[in-house]
């Protein structure tokens, strides 16, 4: 059962700007209107309970899509169905059932202690007292908010505030959580903590999550599926694992030999780097298995240690963005 269905979604912005090469007073005042196709025919569906990574380079149209999914923006074309409702027509009804975190914006009250922001949200969403208490208690524990519940939001660190934002977005038990760059600007520890929390949230409560990020670590840790968009179009929609296998089939075997030597010649792999006794052998999974390669290397030299590097999703995605491979929209 799809909880989100997007069909041929489009959003065009009219941006007025100064005419290029304009001269004189009239020329300077005359402005031309340019149509920016921020979202240009996107279709996808998300199943209840799924956790989908929604990624793409800057300006790809990710935030614009999320705004249409939440009902803040009206599409210029196509349709959106969220829990069988059209969000732009039923904004308030949808709002009661979704949670949103825009990493670059705050939905907390700047001057108020975090606890006060939560209390206001309780009244805004008319959360039953018991539910509210249970949720605050649970999120306080999971996200370790106890130390700063009474601190005004403006005094919180970014990591603390983001934990507060997540709680604020979840107090009313939303069925869908939209996250637009929730880990932006956070340190490694803070990111890890938020990822753990989201993973657990998805398992425990079955919340559907659509996650936008530039940190592929978020995707790798959290999402089994990813949607890659660029220039307002879907360029990949499928399994994170599959994309690794399909487009990142190249793995690297790093071997530490007893003695430095010439590049080892084994079938199915090529040496891409030699550094003293250490050598890097790149191979494609269709040409060789790691086990066969290790055996072949061991037959030619004394092997002390080895590691296998999986292709990093980061590299694959970078290559997709750069258009290195010929990408077509594909569905899994």
């Amino acid at each position, binding site marked *: 059962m799809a909880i989100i269905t997007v069909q041929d979604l489009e959003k065009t912005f009219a941006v007025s700007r100064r005419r290029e090469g304009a001269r004189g007073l009239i020329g300077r005042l005359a402005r031309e209107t340019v149509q920016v196709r921020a979202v240009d025919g996107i279709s996808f569906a998300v199943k209840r309970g799924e956790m989908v990574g929604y990624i793409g380079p800057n300006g790809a149209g990710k935030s614009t899509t999320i705004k249409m999914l939440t009902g*803040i923006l009206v599409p210029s074309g196509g349709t959106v169905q969220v829990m069988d409702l059209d969000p732009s027509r039923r904004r308030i009804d949808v709002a009661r059932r979704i949670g949103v975190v825009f990493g670059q*914006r705050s939905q907390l009250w700047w001057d108020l202690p975090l606890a006060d922001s939560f209390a206001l949200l309780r009244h805004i*969403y008319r959360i039953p007292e018991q539910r509210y208490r249970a949720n605050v208690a649970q999120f306080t524990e999971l996200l370790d908010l106890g130390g700063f519940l009474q601190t005004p939001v403006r005094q919180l660190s970014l990591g603390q505030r983001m934990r507060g934002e997540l709680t604020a977005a979840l107090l009313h038990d939303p069925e869908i959580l939209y996250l637009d760059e929730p880990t932006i600007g956070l340190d490694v520890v803070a990111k890890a903590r938020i990822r753990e929390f989201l993973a657990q949230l998805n398992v425990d409560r079955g919340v559907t999550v659509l996650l936008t990020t530039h940190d592929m670590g978020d995707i790798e840790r959290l999402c089994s599926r990813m949607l890659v968009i660029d220039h307002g179009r879907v360029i990949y929609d499928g399994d994170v694992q599959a994309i690794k296998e399909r487009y990142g089939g190249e793995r690297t075997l790093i071997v530490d030999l007893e003695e430095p030597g010439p590049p080892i010649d084994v079938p199915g792999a090529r040496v891409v780097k030699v550094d003293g006794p250490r050598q890097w052998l790149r191979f494609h999974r269709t040409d060789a298995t790691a086990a066969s390669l290790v055996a072949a290397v061991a037959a030619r030299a004394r092997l002390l240690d080895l590691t296998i590097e999986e292709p990093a999703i980061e590299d694959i995605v970078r290559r997709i963005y750069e258009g290195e491979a010929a990408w077509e929209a594909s569905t899994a």
Partner: protein
Amino acid sequence: MRLYWEVAVRGFRRYTTYRAATLAGIFTNTIFGFMRAYVMLALFDAVTEVGGYDVADALTYTFLAQGLIMVAYLWGWWDVAITIRSGDVVTDFYRPFDYQAYWLAQDLGRALYHAVARGIPPFVVGMLVFDVRLPLSPLVWVAFLVSIALAATVSFAMRFMVNLSAFWLLDYRGPGRLAAALWTALSGFAVPVAFFPEGIGAVVSLLPFVALFEVPVDIFLERQSGTGAAGALLFQAGWALVLLAAGRWMLAAARRKVVIQGG
């Protein structure tokens, strides 16, 4: 309803944390009250009555106006415009509440705090030093308090619209300055409208600006008593409704703009 009450309580509480600002404000308002009082005394040295005010009326007016400054809060309230600039307004737009009522509640909470903390001290100091007039009838006091609440509402309705202009204008402080000039000149804050030349005064008295200062002050001075006071309150309430409605219309236009053009 419960939500708006909670919002108002927090609007009140929010300002209680700025104690130093409150003290500095009381000090400034009182000092300016003294300066204005001496100008009035100099004026009434030459005449005994201006526009129906005697010297006691004029002194009372002076310290009331100084006390009511922060209730009207006509200069420098940009809370809404700031969220529009930062884009945080988007979060408020998809919340299930009435956006205008939400801000009104918050601002009435604030106004109550300022009425008490910033209004009473300058007046009390003025009362101890100068001969001011205090109403005897409890009914007048009740009408005065209602009038202050209505003044706060009218002032909010105006400031709300000025702030909403940030949706269309890069420099929202421009209309803010223009509005501040109108408020200062036409509300009875700088000079009682009763001191204006008759024809001009009559016109100005019909404009909503007098709902901010002139009307509550006149009620306090019992220049409008009985049905006159009731009429004055109706005048304020009428403008409050009209201006709030205009604000809603502007808000709807802003929302359309955000929803279509993305802000």
